[in-house]
Every structure is written in structure tokens, then in C-alpha cells.
């Protein structure tokens, strides 16, 4: 759990503060980033689930049991977000500080960036939640649902409603969603928090 939190923290520092931020600034970020709070509470909740499954009844488990409901309420009020504790989120994921995330995927790979107002969940007719690969970029106001797989390095454009598989490095967009382009390198998108995607850059290939 602690190594995952350290990975998250270094991503948040790199995204929010840039290179060469002081120790004090880094410390202050813990209290200024709602997205980091959402991730931390998710990590605590996930660790509690694991501990309970292993029959672990230490003092920390009890402390988690007592504080988690309060922490979740805080997350709802501060960030309007809910991350299901049974999903698996690898270390080093960036969740938007603007919040409104209702996400319960099967898995999110490391290096993924998720913007605000994103819903990831089960399909209403009973299909399971999506699996999201590594280094995926998900724009604001997206809905991903159903038993689908978003490939490594994929890009989901803002405002997409998607229930289908996306191949590695592909770009998905539209409502209802479709594959807009194959083979797009999203590393530049993932480096900043800007979410205005240059359409010509995407279509012209």
C-alpha cells in the first residue's frame, strides 16, 4: 500500500508542481489536491478489503474500519467522487482535482490520467465493468461502461460514451463512441492537465 501511495504522490507532484518543487510545497499538496485525497481513501478502502479477506484483525484494520465511512463522506463532499474499493488501481494514476468521478472499473493500469466528470461502471443490463490499460488518457465528461477493454496507451476524447473495446494506442471519440484513429501517441497529452485536444492533429494521419 505505501509503495503505491508513494507512486501516486510523485505523479501528483510532477503534474501539479513541476520540477524542483520544495519539500514544503510537496507537503502542502497533500491538503490541496482533492484528486489525491480520493486516491488515498480508495487505497485505504482497498487495503481494508484485503485485510478482511485475509482474516487480519490487527489494530490498523480496526482503525480503518472505524475511519473509512467518515473518510468516504469527506471524499463525497470535497470531491463529489466515489471510487469502488474492490477495483484494482495500480500505483501512479492521476485522478482529476475537479472531481465528479464515479468509477468502479475492474482495473486501471499505471500512468493513466482521468479528467473530471467521468463515469466508469457496469452496464445497466448486467455486464461487468471495463478494464483500463496502462498510460490511458480519458478526457472530461466521458462514460465508459460494460465489459470492455481499453488498451494500453489509448486516448478517449472528451465527451465520449463508450461500451466497446479500444485497441492499444487507438483514439476513441463521439457519442455513441467509435474508434476515431489508430496509432496515436498520447504521451504529450498525459504530460499536462490541458484537456483541449487538437482535432486536426488527431484526424490527420
Amino acid at each position, binding site marked *: 500500500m505505501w509503495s503505491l501511495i508513494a507512486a501516486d504522490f510523485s505523479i501528483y507532484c510532477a503534474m501539479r508542481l513541476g520540477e524542483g518543487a520544495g519539500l514544503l510545497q510537496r507537503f502542502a499538496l497533500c491538503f490541496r489536491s482533492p484528486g489525491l485525497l480520493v486516491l488515498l481513501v480508495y487505497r485505504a478502502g482497498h487495503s481494508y478489503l484485503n485485510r478482511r479477506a485475509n482474516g487480519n484483525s490487527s489494530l490498523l484494520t480496526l482503525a480503518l474500519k472505524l475511519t473509512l465511512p467518515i473518510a468516504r463522506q469527506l471524499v*463525497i*463532499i470535497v470531491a*463529489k*467522487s*466515489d471510487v469502488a474499493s474492490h477495483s484494482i488501481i495500480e500505483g501512479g494514476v492521476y485522478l482529476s482535482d475537479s*472531481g*465528479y468521478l*464515479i468509477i468502479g472499473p475492474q482495473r486501471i493500469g499505471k500512468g493513466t490520467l482521468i479528467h473530471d*466528470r467521468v*463515469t466508469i*461502471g457496469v452496464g*445497466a*443490463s*448486467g455486464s461487468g465493468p471495463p478494464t483500463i490499460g496502462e498510460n490511458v488518457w480519458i478526457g472530461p*465528461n466521458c*462514460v465508459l*461502461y460494460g465489459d470492455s477493454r481499453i488498451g494500453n496507451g489509448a486516448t478517449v476524447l472528451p*465527451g465520449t*460514451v463508450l461500451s466497446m473495446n479500444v485497441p492499444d494506442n487507438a483514439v476513441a471519440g463521439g*457519442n*455513441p463512441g467509435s474508434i476515431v484513429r489508430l496509432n496515436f501517441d498520447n504521451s504529450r497529452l498525459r504530460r499536462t492537465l490541458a484537456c483541449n485536444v487538437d482535432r486536426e492533429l488527431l484526424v490527420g494521419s
Partner: protein
Amino acid sequence: MTSFVQASRADLQRYLGGEAASLSSILATIRRNEGLQAILVYRFGRLLDSKKELVLLWPLLSMGWCIYGLAALFVRRGYGIKLALSANIGAGFWVGHFGGIEVFNCRLAERCSVGQQTKVGGATQRDGPIIEDSVWIGAHASIAGPVRVRSRATIAPGARVTKNVPGRALVVGAPARVVAREYDNSRILPGL
């Protein structure tokens, strides 16, 4: 008063599902579901609104309005759920999750469902949408303007409805178009 009790009971019943309604399970359900809290606050506001002609009750009502104002402010700011009193919502309403939900200047019949980021409403009370019973409105969907959504229709997640929707239809996309004429939504309506 009776309509308030009946409507709240129907709302609660949808969240309880098949659970036995003991007091502890009711309280736990209210604590766990932010949407239900918002609905109960809305019902209380409508109750106060319906009693405003009774002048003798005004001292009591003003206290009620204070409580309603604080509770509605908390629900709106804390959870991001805005169920305005200008909306006329039928019994058995269901709000999924929280965040960015706006229901105003519209009429919803019984047993409707909305998800997070859903916007339902018109510019004024007269040209708001009219939604008939058992309509399922998915997350991130929006229904704007003077449109009519017929009974048992299904609005898919993210759909932008700007035209009338026939009964039992499934509409998808922005702008929304009908993709299935006979779609049975009884399975996806939560708690029914």
C-alpha cells in the same frame, strides 16, 4: 400530508429493494444513499410548499423552511444534487450516485430513475420536459426543452434528448435517436 408520506415511502421502497423494512435497515439505507437523502429533502420542501395557503400554520412553516433551506443547501453543495421545487416528481423516484444532477422545471411521473450528471429541465416552468412513468434516464444524459418522453422509454447514458421519445423506445447518442422501438427496461429499473 398523505401524498408526502406515500411518495416518500415509495421512494424508500425502491432503495430498500426486497429488504425487510426494519427501522435500522431504513436508517442504514438513508445513510448509504445520497440520492435518497436528496429525494427526502425535496419531498419535505414540496410538503411545505403545498401548505402555504394555511395562514395559521405560518409560524410552523417558517421553521420548516429554515430546516429545508439548510438541508437543500447541503444536498446541493455537498452532493451536487439539485432537485428544484419547480420540478414535479412522482412517487418512487430513484437517484443513482451523486454529482452534477439537476432536475428543474419539469414533470416526472411515477417510478422514474436518473443517474449522475443528468440534467432534466427547461428554461421556464411552462416549456420544461414532461416525462411519463417508468422512464430510465442514464448517467450524463440530458433532456432539455418542451419535449415529451413517453411511458417506459429508456434514455441511454450520455444521450442528449431534444425531441419527443416514443413509449418503450431506447434512445442513444447526441442528438438522441431511437435505436430500438421495443426495449424492455423493467430489468434495469433499480428496485422494482
